[in-house]
């Protein structure tokens, strides 16, 4: 599904931010991307999302060499990837319902065809009574849940989440993780960037991709 070979990235003439990245994300796999703050987790997620181009190495995504893809194909691939940004990136002028429905709306689907799905997912993440609320009046946790719901609504094949439980209480974090688990069981590959050890310990079966000093080490579930 996603394969990094000797991938490195530098900005301008500076030193490499990340380098020698060699790992793959298999279909229906579950992994944590972890490491200290500033180690490069978000950069690696952006490379996975194809919003950054590596300065060396190759990235294979859905069986294609990412460097040879044209824009329309990349757009098509993005529709198969759900992403939860650390800063949520909800559109301030849209309601929670509209923000969550956004990936389906930009696909050109009729609003009536997805209304039930969106409402059900909002109920699931505990935002059933906040459907018409604008992001400005949502708490940090509510924004995070809305961002997660937006990433899940199109049932992506790959979910990239950057600190998805950083702003919610433990009970809600557990509930959201159940959502990720259900999505994983239904066939979605999950990559969660976090430095929350307690969170990772709840998923002994998950791989850990540990970033440190711009390098990445893979610990499979058995050795983790």
């Amino acid at each position: 599904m996603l394969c990094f070979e000797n991938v490195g990235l530098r900005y301008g003439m500076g030193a490499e931010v990340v380098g020698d990245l060699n790992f793959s994300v298999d279909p229906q796999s579950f992994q944590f991307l972890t490491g200290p703050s500033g180690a490069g987790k978000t950069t690696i997620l952006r490379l996975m999302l194809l919003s950054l181009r590596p300065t060396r190495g190759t990235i294979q995504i859905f069986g294609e060499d990412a460097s040879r893809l044209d824009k329309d194909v990349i757009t098509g691939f993005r529709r198969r990837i759900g992403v939860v940004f650390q800063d949520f990136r909800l559109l301030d002028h849209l309601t929670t319902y509209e923000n969550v429905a956004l990936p389906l709306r930009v696909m050109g689907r009729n609003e009536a065809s997805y209304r039930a799905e969106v409402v059900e997912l909002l109920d699931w993440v505990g935002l059933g009574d906040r459907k018409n609320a604008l992001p400005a009046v949502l708490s940090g946790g509510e924004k995070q849940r809305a961002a997660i719901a937006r990433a899940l609504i199109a049932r992506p094949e790959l979910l990239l989440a950057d600190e998805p439980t950083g702003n919610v209480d433990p009970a809600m974090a557990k509930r959201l993780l159940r959502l990720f688990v259900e999505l994983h069981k239904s066939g979605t590959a999950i990559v969660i960037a976090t430095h929350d050890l307690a969170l990772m310990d709840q998923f002994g079966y998950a791989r850990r991709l540990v970033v440190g000093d711009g390098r990445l080490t893979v610990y499979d579930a058995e050795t983790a």
Partner: protein
Amino acid sequence: MNDGSGGELPIPADSQLKRDMPLVPADSIAGRALVVVIAIMTFLACLTAVGALLIAEASQGWRADVSREVTIQIKPHPGEDVQALVSKATEVAARSSDVADVHALSKSESEHLLEPWLGQGLDLSQLPIPRLIVVHMQTRQQSDLESLRAALTEAVPQASLDDHALWLSRLDTMADVIVIFAAALFVLMIIAMATAIGFATRGAMAGNREIIEVLHFVGAEDRYIARQFQTHFMRLGLRGAAIGGSAAAILFLAASLFSALSYSSAGGREIAALFGAFSLTAGAYVAIFVICAAIAALTGLLSRQIVFNHLRELA
């Protein structure tokens, strides 16, 4: 969660659900500022364009009026009955089929013409003041003038015919300069307006970069994103252009009304002679409409280009 087909769950009949907000915020401070800038620039562009049209039309009017007018001058000589010569020359001119109207200025009218230079209250009866006959030709054909000149020379040898050629050529030059100046002013105005709208659109777009990025990351095609922004900014452009264009049209209508009311005064007649009656012709309305539509299209196209540039940067 269901399978994503949307067919397993009943569609909630939630009439309270807000779900039709445009992807680009319809009302924002930057958007309102852009509307104001566009309205002002459209107003000024319409004033310049319609002003240029009015001047061009008025100058055509002057030229047509003046070029059809010629003057017969009879200088008084001792022992001659000037009044008889004037009557005879008037009769000869009136007989010509090429002449539309003849008006012989009376002695007092001729003396009245000198008042601006000599002052009022003087006895001018002793001065040999030439007598003038104003002739309006049907057309400005040189052959018509020559036949009139020949008839006058034969009947009244003392009369001379002035076709105002020198003054007319100066007037032509002046009118051409005014029209060219108005056209150049309009072109400069259009360039300034396009630049100002370009900057204002870029400013308004700057606040929307976040929206472009989010739409990009959730899988919206570039064309889809560009269409959203183009439609939004074209609407803003249309709103601003409609306000500016309407204000210009109202101003010209008011000026036309004022001009009609003040036509009876000497000043009003002079203004009407110089600039016409300020009445908007169909051409002026078309010009205002075309300017408004062009400004809206320009705003939409600029925003589209800015979106594509930003998406190129993201890629």
